[in-house]
């Protein structure tokens, strides 16, 4: 069973505010799921390479050129922001 403190630590890393009740609920649920995935420890993986992508992935590159369509899209994208100033997204100040 993972501890309440561990749940709180993970929630902070994941940037999720949890109530005390939710911490308790997650403690139980995560423990039961982690207990289930323990099964993977039976598998001998000592000489096995990891798969991160179903097929061999090739890197794709493009020319670094001005994209006219993107520039017209920028306004639309900015319009979705909850707080902005001129052409910038507004973020709370972090330097005091």
């Amino acid at each position, binding site marked *: 069973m*993972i501890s309440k403190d561990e*749940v709180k630590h*993970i*929630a*902070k*890393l*994941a*940037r*999720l*505010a*949890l109530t005390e009740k939710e911490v308790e609920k*997650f403690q139980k*649920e*995560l423990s*039961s*799921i*982690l207990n*289930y*995935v*323990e*099964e*993977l*420890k039976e*598998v001998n*993986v000592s000489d*096995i*390479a*990891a*798969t*991160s*992508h*179903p*097929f061999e*992935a090739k890197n*794709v590159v*493009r020319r670094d050129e001005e994209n006219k369509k993107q520039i017209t*899209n920028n306004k*639309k*994208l900015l*319009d*979705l*922001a*909850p*707080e902005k100033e001129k052409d910038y*997204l*507004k*973020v*709370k*100040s*972090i330097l005091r």
Partner: protein
Amino acid sequence: MDLTELTIRQAHEGLKKKEFSALEICRSFLDNVKKKDKEISAFLNTNEELSLSLAKDADEIISKNKDFPLLTGVPCAIKDNMLVEGLKCTAGSRILDNYIAPYNATVVEKLKKENAVILGKTNLDEFAMGSSTENSAFGPTRNPHDTSRVPGGSSGGSAAAVAAEECLFALGSDTGGSIRLPASFCGVAGLKPTYGAVSRYGLIAFASSLDQIGPLAKTVEDCQIVFDAIKGKDPLDSTSVETPKIENCKLKIENLRIGVPKEYFVKGIDPEVEKVIKEAIKKYEEMGVKIEEVSLPNTKYALPCYYIIAPSEASANLARYDGIKYGMSEAEKNSNLLDVYLNTRGKGFGAEVRRRIMLGTYSLSSGYYEAYYLRAQKVRTLVKRDFEKVFQKVDAIFTPVSPVLPFKIGEKIEDPLSMYLVDVYTVSINLAGLPALSLPVGKVTPHQNGGGGLPVGLQIIGKPFEEEKILKVGKLFQEIHA
């Protein structure tokens, strides 16, 4: 004639012969949505004005051209995790409740190019995480075969819309079974293409190494028509590829060899589901197909492997919902940046999404990465190898799509692990990147259930990029049992 009963091919022929117009088809489907969707809740949003104008455009093209694309004037529905420019796109989440798509997903562009008529956006488990569509922040969708039961998930709205004849076809996405399970539960055909066969540009990301877009439709032939329209390499998705042409895909039934993995018929499968699946396999045998038992020894590890990898990728993908760029935001109510993040995400995400973000963050965190995430990636290699080995001697693999029948709304929602177990037969296909078709092959009538019974789907798994072959195998069944 009831236009909502047509297949895509029949609609196309009728439009060609001017037996009816695209506008008439569109109106019939919109009427059906009005009549049925209060009870089914397959759609999150419809836009009548837009649909009718698209239908008029289609009629214009039909009147001016002798030949036009197969999907011209065909009404369809789009899962609400794919962007349609100008329409709300919520992914079933409160955090995107106010989000208007600023551009089209590539699949939507492709449908528009064929002049398909978009009726609206369908319900889903929040961010496609779930197996019942109960995780939608906007309420569950109901199974048209029995409205006390779930339609499966996460593309439950898309499957239910097709089954209730509220659209002619729908697009879904499949990360661990999200097209195939609802197709099975709602008695429609659903194709999860090979990883990379269809562009993911404009699909709201869940787990990027597993996600694929695919069609749900009444028949396998209709699935093929839609798949052919949406597939292909896209410069905007660098993981997309051109589907190579299969040489000699003239399928001879007597040359067809199909494997049935013994690991899929063990404890946990509903005996009634097993019976329908075994009968379907027998019917193929009677057609002359060679059926042989095969082994996928790492099958039992696929589900725990998936439930590490998918949440890990999800926890990274969903980091973008921060209340700064778009979507719901608590910025106004908080003066501190960290609080903006914590409260936006804490309030915006539902229970299952938070659970998976937590699980993924845990698996990727320092000290646990090797024991969980890296180990799961290694097990993924083994799951993939199992398939490669079996595909050296068979053309396709038959398994059930789900171990259980459509379950009651509320039955599994309080126990996350019991919900995860519904995906036991579908997740390994995503881990290996393979194409798989969910084919309706029969029905079961449980004792407490009146009516016409509950559908059961057969899963037909193919080699990478051999969609054409598994679709042909699926068509064999539908031609004989039409």
